[in-house]
């Protein structure tokens, strides 16, 4: 995987655009997932993740081969997501009702994909409801929870991605976890 990836990166640096398509294919789901969980709806998630890949491409010279590529990519995607959230109105207030419309929007877009079997609809509904709860977290706690529990990253990696000390990342995980606990205990 690493050899393959390094080869691709070398080719991209040498000007081979096709090699970049392979990188996008390999990482699109992970990047899209982070973006989707962060911004909370499909349209913006697509914008953010697409922009993340474009930035990775234009800044490929700055990527240090000795570091983990996915960490670098996640950092770009997370920063873009947080920027996007900051520009929007603070719709991550603790009032879940306000977020109902937002979450519904994401759900509607997810569910709009053709006619799906009942189980899949239920899964989508389930996913959308959890997303609604995640959407209510402030961005920094949201990022911590997503990277830790959805991407399974270590505190060290999260510290690089979020550009925060490990201790701060840990505090964000704790607060995010507590906030979610209170929201999800009624489930």
């Amino acid at each position, binding site marked *: 995987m690493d050899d393959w990836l390094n080869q691709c990166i070398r080719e991209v640096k040498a*000007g081979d*655009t096709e090699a*970049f*398509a392979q990188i*996008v*294919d390999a990482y*699109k*789901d992970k*990047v*899209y*997932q982070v973006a*989707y969980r962060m911004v909370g709806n*499909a349209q913006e998630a*697509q914008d953010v*993740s*697409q922009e993340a*890949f*474009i930035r990775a*491409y*234009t800044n490929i010279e700055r990527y240090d081969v000795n570091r983990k590529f996915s960490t670098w990519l996640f950092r770009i995607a997370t920063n873009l997501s947080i920027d996007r959230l900051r520009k929007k109105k603070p719709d991550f207030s603790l009032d879940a009702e306000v977020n109902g419309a937002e979450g519904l929007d994401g759900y509607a877009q997810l569910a709009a994909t053709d006619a799906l079997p009942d189980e899949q609809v239920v899964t989508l509904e*389930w*996913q959308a409801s*959890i*997303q609604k709860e*995640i959407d209510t977290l402030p961005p920094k706690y949201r990022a911590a*929870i997503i990277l830790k*529990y*959805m*991407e399974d990253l270590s505190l060290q990696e999260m510290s690089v991605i979020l550009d925060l000390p490990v201790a701060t990342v*840990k505090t964000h*995980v*704790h607060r995010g*976890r507590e906030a*979610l*606990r209170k*929201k*999800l*205990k009624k*489930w």
Partner: protein
Amino acid sequence: MKHSDSIHRYFDGEMTQNEREQLYRHLEGCSECKEHYDEVKKSIALVQSASHIQAPKEFTENVMSALPQKKKKRTIAWKKWSKNHPVLVAAAVFLLFMSSMTWLNWTGMSGGEMAISGVGNFEVDQESNTVIIPEGEVIEGDLTVRNGDVDVQGEVQGDLTVINGERYMASAGQVAGNIEEVNQVLSWLWYETKELFSNLTPDREE
């Protein structure tokens, strides 16, 4: 609140086996902590169950078509580089002009007509493009031939220079001075440079 701290440590995966066993024992007797523990556990499970969504179809194609042109980027990089290295850029431009001039001279010449400079009785064979110094003839000064071959059967007392041509020597032929053949662009350049400097030296002809 001490217990909630230990619950955090538990879920951070920082507890030793011993501490974990202690916590389990405590949870059996403390319903408040047990509830807290179960709630955290449940919320983590819920969040984890919500993962694994996929990028939309044609995502890669969309990214690829939105990529900026690499050429554009190259120009920017080149501009930056040239701003930082003005001397190198000047040197490169100079070299470019120099080499194109030399190249023009060279190519212009090789396609051109034969030119001979020198004084004496030599024959010119137009068909084979050859300058012949017949047996018994003596060229007292230098002889320079461009775009032609030289067949020396007699004698050249000065230097013989053949540019873009070949030199044949008959066994009886003789050249007293230096013989120089210039057939490559580089040696041509070298020859021109040498000529320039020896012309600048005043006592060469004397």
